[in-house]
């Protein structure tokens, strides 16, 4: 079939030998020769499954599609695929056909008619995966929803641009439905619509599964047990049961279609799939977590007991047999250690029927070995083949109570291959069904190659391993999710936070600032002394306590002797009153800090706040606060942040908890500079991550900001606000109290949304140096 070439001749006059086909052809009333060429075959398939009424409906629909004016492809796709769709959806086309036709009409009426062909072409594949009319209906709903929401319009009334993502969506749908449920597909689609509705190229990338976040969302929505969710339990499993610990590296199973990778390990770590569905084995259900455990246990067995063998001496068949025997040996040893593992292994191990493979026509080596492997693991196996039984006996004899060796297994395997060899083993047609034992690794560690072999395959490019990562000057970024209020989900790994040491300036500047506020400092000092922990506090009037309070005791005794009811609270005890507070001061260093303090707000005789920028004022305030906290002795840290899109949130370290309030810190503080935007959520999360690792009773995150969260790559002002609110909630859950001091006089509008009750707006900015330390003392009193 040549597309794009207009055929002049009309195929309407084509005639068919079968009268029924001839009638149908006339009814179809179609002039495409390409359709005429395959029509007879299509009708034959349709006749096999449809009754007369269904056939009529089928032809009616086909006729409609043929007359859409979209060329022969949609019609061809429909004619060829529809019987398969109906068969997959349990044989009834009645509820389905109107649905599909409705969808086609909707696409035809909108500018999206180009998507009709991919829709029809992938429909059969979709139907095979979804298996029911209701599910297909859901799928069509998702597609139509996508179409409506992404078709563009100029003046808001009529949609005039086709949806860029829709054809790609149809192309990818079969693959996606392999990985996702329809609910997952809906979430994935919604995410794409929400984020890329107004960006056609990015939208195409997303729906083509080309962009990173598209894949990330697929990964998040997948069914089964995700590796990321069980990484810690698996690590604990290795440590606890096997005293082993190794880097666990997941590989992707979502986007490899030709060759499914198998677990393996090398010196860089244990490679396991990124997701396992629950397995329904012959002996019951095995959870995804247990499948991971089985994989790890098997690898641990190899690491403990397997040696290396020179591969060059063996044929591929012999190697395969050696691997089967060796796998069974280590599994037997594993089950000796933990007898309960037998259940899991046997549930995951295929149980091939003894007569499943015909040795006359197919290569049965895999089948024989799989049966043998099962028989070696399960003493209650059903097999009766005398050779198999003999080798099972020899295997157990070799193992005895000891651990045997890889060498011994190799010898046993060689003699097994020699004894059971058949001519048909060489056949190209290999029996694979029920022989794949998927929790076993690929045994690459077992073989040592002296010469380069051509049948060896690694799915890690060796060049890639040798390449060293480029030395970077700063720390690698930490990625944080961002809350998407519209969908009530997190956008995974959305913001990249780069942490760096703040550049240093001149420490004397800060000392000068402190001198300037010497009067204020003296006032603060008096307050501070009151707050300092008085290590021991006496509690009097206790019924039970560590000591007798003699004054009270004597008066009680007098009461007693004079016949009055004595006060029984004659003891006293002590209580330690220590402060246990960690505080992190987070400074918003965005561009707006460079603004001058408005004229006319400064007080006369204050040494001139006029002409100062907000940044300079903050510097003074922070210096005073730092000095005050240092006097109190509370551990504190200072950091600044600003951002330039989600890809670059800079978090600048000024003072750490264990650093002293010395010249190094003051120098960094003196060099404080402002620029860029305020992505508050990411910075709050990063700061919270440090605070939550602290052990103090009370952890305070004090945020000093001059505006609401904003960034240049976000158009919706509410989004970052919602994200910051979520970040504050997360902090609270970690036991960190976030408090915001805002310098924005208009902050009342949003700061309450973000910080709840914990905020204060400072409307006289020039009083900041005085307010900040007092605020802190009030907070921690």
């Amino acid at each position: 079939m040549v597309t794009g070439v207009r055929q002049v001749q009309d195929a309407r006059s084509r005639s068919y030998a079968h009268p029924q086909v001839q009638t149908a052809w006339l009814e179809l009333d179609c002039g495409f020769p390409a359709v005429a060429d395959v029509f007879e075959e299509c009708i034959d398939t349709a006749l096999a499954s449809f009754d007369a009424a269904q056939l009529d409906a089928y032809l009616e629909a086909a006729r409609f599609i043929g007359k859409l004016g979209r060329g022969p492809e949609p019609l061809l796709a429909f004619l060829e695929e529809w019987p398969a769709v109906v068969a997959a959806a349990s044989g009834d086309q009645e509820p389905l056909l109107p649905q599909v036709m409705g969808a086609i009409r909707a696409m035809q009426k909108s500018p999206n008619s180009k998507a009709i062909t991919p829709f029809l072409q992938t429909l059969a594949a979709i139907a095979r995966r979804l298996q029911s009319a209701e599910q297909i209906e859901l799928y069509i709903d998702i597609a139509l929803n996508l179409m409506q929401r992404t078709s563009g319009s100029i003046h808001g009334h009529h949609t005039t641009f086709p949806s860029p993502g829709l054809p790609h969506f149809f192309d990818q749908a079969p693959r996606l439905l392999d990985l996702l449920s329809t609910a997952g597909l809906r979430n994935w689609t919604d995410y794409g619509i929400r984020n890329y509705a107004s960006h056609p190229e990015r939208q195409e990338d997303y729906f083509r599964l080309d962009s990173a976040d598209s894949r990330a969302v697929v990964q998040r929505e997948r069914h089964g047990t995700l590796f990321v969710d069980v990484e810690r339990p698996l690590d604990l499993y290795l440590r606890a049961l096997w005293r082993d610990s190794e880097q666990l590296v997941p590989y992707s199973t979502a986007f490899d279609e030709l060759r499914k990778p198998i677990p393996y390990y090398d010196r860089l770590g244990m490679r396991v799939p990124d997701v396992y569905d629950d397995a329904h084995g012959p002996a019951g259900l095995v959870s995804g977590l247990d499948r991971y455990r089985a994989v790890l246990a098997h690898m641990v067995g190899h690491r403990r007991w397997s040696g290396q063998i020179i591969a060059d001496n063996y044929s591929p068949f012999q190697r395969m047999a050696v691997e089967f025997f060796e796998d069974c040996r280590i599994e037997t040893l594993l089950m000796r250690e933990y007898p309960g593992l037998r259940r899991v292994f046997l549930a995951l191990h295929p149980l091939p029927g003894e007569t499943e493979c015909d040795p006359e026509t197919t290569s049965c080596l895999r089948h024989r070995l799989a049966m043998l492997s099962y028989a070696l693991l399960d003493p209650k196996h059903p097999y009766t083949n005398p050779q198999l039984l003999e080798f099972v006996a020899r295997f157990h004899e070799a193992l005895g109570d000891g651990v045997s060796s890889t060498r011994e297994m190799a010898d046993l395997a060689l003699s097994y291959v020699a004894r059971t060899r058949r001519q048909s083993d060489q056949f190209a047609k290999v029996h694979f069904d029920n022989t794949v034992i998927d929790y076993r690794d690929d045994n690459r560690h077992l073989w040592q190659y002296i010469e380069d072999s051509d049948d060896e395959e690694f799915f890690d490019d060796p060049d890639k391993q040798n390449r060293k990562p480029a030395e970077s000057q700063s720390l690698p970024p930490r990625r944080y999710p961002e809350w998407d209020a519209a969908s009530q989900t997190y956008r995974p790994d959305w913001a990249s936070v780069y942490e760096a040491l703040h550049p240093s300036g001149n420490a004397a500047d800060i000392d000068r600032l402190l001198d300037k506020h010497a009067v204020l400092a003296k006032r603060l000092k008096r307050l501070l002394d009151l707050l300092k922990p008085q290590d021991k506090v006496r509690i009097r009037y206790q019924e039970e306590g560590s000591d007798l309070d003699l004054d009270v005791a004597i008066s009680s005794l007098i009461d007693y002797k004079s016949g009055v009811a004595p006060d029984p609270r004659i003891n006293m005890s002590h209580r330690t009153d220590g402060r246990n507070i960690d505080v992190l001061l987070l400074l918003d260093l965005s561009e707006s800090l460079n603004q001058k303090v408005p004229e006319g707000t400064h007080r006369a005789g204050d040494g001139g706040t006029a002409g100062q920028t907000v940044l300079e004022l903050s510097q003074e305030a922070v210096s005073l606060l730092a000095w005050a906290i240092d006097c109190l002795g509370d551990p504190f840290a200072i950091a600044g942040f600003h951002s330039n899109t989600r890809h670059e949130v800079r978090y600048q370290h000024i003072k750490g908890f264990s650093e002293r309030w010395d010249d190094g810190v003051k120098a960094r503080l003196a060099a404080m500079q402002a620029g860029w935007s305020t992505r508050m959520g990411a910075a709050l999360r990063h700061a919270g991550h440090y605070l939550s690792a602290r052990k103090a009773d009370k952890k305070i995150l004090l945020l000093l900001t001059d505006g609401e969260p904003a960034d240049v790559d976000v158009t919706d002002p509410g989004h970052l606000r919602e994200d910051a609110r979520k970040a504050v909630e997360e902090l609270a859950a970690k036991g960190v109290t976030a408090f915001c001091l805002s310098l924005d006089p208009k902050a009342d509008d949003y700061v309450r949304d973000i910080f709840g009750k914990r905020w204060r707006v400072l409307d006289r900015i020039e009083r900041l140096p005085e307010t900040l330390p007092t605020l802190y003392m009030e907070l921690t009193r």
Partner: protein
Amino acid sequence: MSNKDQYLVRAEPFYRAQGREVELYEAAYAARLPVMLKGPTGCGKSRFVEYMAWKLNKPLITVACNEDMTASDLVGRYLLDANGTRWLDGPLTIAARLGAICYLDEIVEARQDTTVVIHPLTDHRRVLPLDKKGELIEAHPDFQLVISYNPGYQSLMKDLKQSTKQRFTAFDFDYPEAALETQIVVTESGVDAELAATLVKIAQTARNLKGHGLDEGISTRLVVYAATLIGRGVAPQDACRMAMVRPITDDADIRATLDHAVDASFP
């Protein structure tokens, strides 16, 4: 002397020596040197002291220390009675007067300023000044001070002062070897050796996780509890979960891992 008798350990406590600690302790006692026992919870520190007190036929006074404990809880305090005040000796004072072994269990739980009162008793002076009463007690020749603590789980705040540490000779205790621990479990609970070995194996599984989310592994004491439950007819898996897994962790991941270890250990 009936006062003294009540502190004697009458029946022989079951104790299986892990090394030469019994003879070493006897040597320390002969010289009346103060002894410190270190080791994780439930590994047999208290049992060892009890056993030694029985073996030496000396009274044993045990004090479980806690954060609210003050110096007067150890030394003694004035109480009121009808005629005025009356002094009541604390356990440490009683031990010093009677010539008993005074065992301060989990000493680091007490605050540091509290533990300083034991200093004069633990060096060459062997005296206990009761400053409130104005009395200086010379320790009885048989008196000995034993303290125990668990270096593993307490926070940095709860460490012993160097000045306290350096007044003691010390034993390091740990969970016994698997074979020995199995024997202990068999003797304490009466289950058969095979089951005891399985239980010990599960306990060791958890001990591998110490520092990776667990502050302490499953102690010998808990293994004995589990074995006791099984001996009373509880299903082994249930007994292990109840006595060995649930008590030591609230972390869901660790619980799942240990539950799996329990399942995997029974065929």
